[in-house]
């Protein structure tokens, strides 16, 4: 199953190292392949360096593409992590 959803970076500092690590950590438990698209750049969300390369600041919109057997759960986890500002609220 393939899901596409747009999420907003809500935390003040943007997608810096800690949020990137949080995303990679939550994906470790999931099987689906996850890609982030931002400013014409599509990257593998399992790689910290790739997420950091995006340098997505606060309020930027990221298109998340999830494909695989646990796509729904993976997507909801990612959306929640972005909504909760990666625990930086």
């Amino acid at each position, binding site marked *: 199953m393939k899901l596409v959803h747009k999420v907003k970076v809500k935390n003040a500092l943007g997608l810096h190292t800690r949020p990137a690590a949080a995303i990679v950590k939550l994906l470790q438990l999931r099987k689906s392949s996850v890609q982030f698209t931002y400013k014409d*750049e599509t*990257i*593998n969300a399992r*790689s*910290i*360096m790739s997420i*950091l*390369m995006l*340098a997505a600041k606060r309020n930027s919109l990221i298109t998340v593409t999830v494909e695989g057997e646990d796509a729904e759960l993976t997507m909801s986890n990612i959306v929640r992590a972005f909504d909760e500002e990666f625990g930086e609220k």
Partner: protein
Amino acid sequence: MYLVQDFVAQHGKSLGLELVAGQGGLFRRIKKPEVHRPGLSLTGYLQGYVSSRILVIGRQEIEYLRELDFSLQRQRLEAIFTPATPAVIIARGCRIPKELYGFCDRMKLPLFRAGSNATNLLSRITFLLLEEFCPSVTLHGTLVEVFGVGLLIQGESSVGKSEAALGLIERGHRLISDDVVRVKKKEGSYLVGAGPELTRHLMEIRGIGIINVAHLYGAVCVRPDKGLDIVVKLEEWDEQHFYDRVGLDEKFIDVLGVSVPYHVLPVKPGRDVVLLLETIALNHRLKDMGYNSAKEFNLKLLDALARRQKKRVVREART
């Protein structure tokens, strides 16, 4: 989208560009990697005139404009300075006619002055724009230079790409980029890979974290970019899969329409991946020099078989 302000930010200094009018037009888009010197177009001949090119105006054009009367000058300029024109550059630091300032400000068309001559500007800007507009793709993998060969290590997350690259660096090879590689096709024929500016020469190693290779191992162990010569895919050893045992058939992978030699390297505990990658790179160099170990051996074998066959025929004829 490539805007005039991006171009100026990147190359303005090296080209010696100085913005003199039309600041409001810096957000104009550059759509074509082309520069035009509007000699003929200034005379009013506009057949086949492409308006979306950057214009470089040299001394001759300026002299010609000066000779025209005011209304004609305006008419000619209006014809070639269109809403699609990204920018106008006056070469050789020429004195710019006053009318041109007001005209560019009203049209919000960036007007620059540069010190070098028109021919020089044309060639340099064309080169820079071609570089910017060449097709590119972002690949997931680690690009290293091994014995002068650009080797892209690909594979699933956690198969050991970064660890293999670190091993190679430790042996004196060079890192170009870890995890994300931007590959460009240059001059329509060859590929060059580079790392994104922000994460250049950084690596993420599980259990250690983010390290800066340039600082840890020194400047000799990194490079900003490198041609992409081979793609190696690391994968978990699969007992069911038949891996290449002789190397007679060469596999290729398509990257931006260029076929690149492709190897699948199975990984399992006890296999020295670093050594194997070095061997792949060396073997590639040998092939480049015209020697293919597998083919050469096969020819020798076929020759030996043929000789044996002949001996047997001669022996049988005698008896």
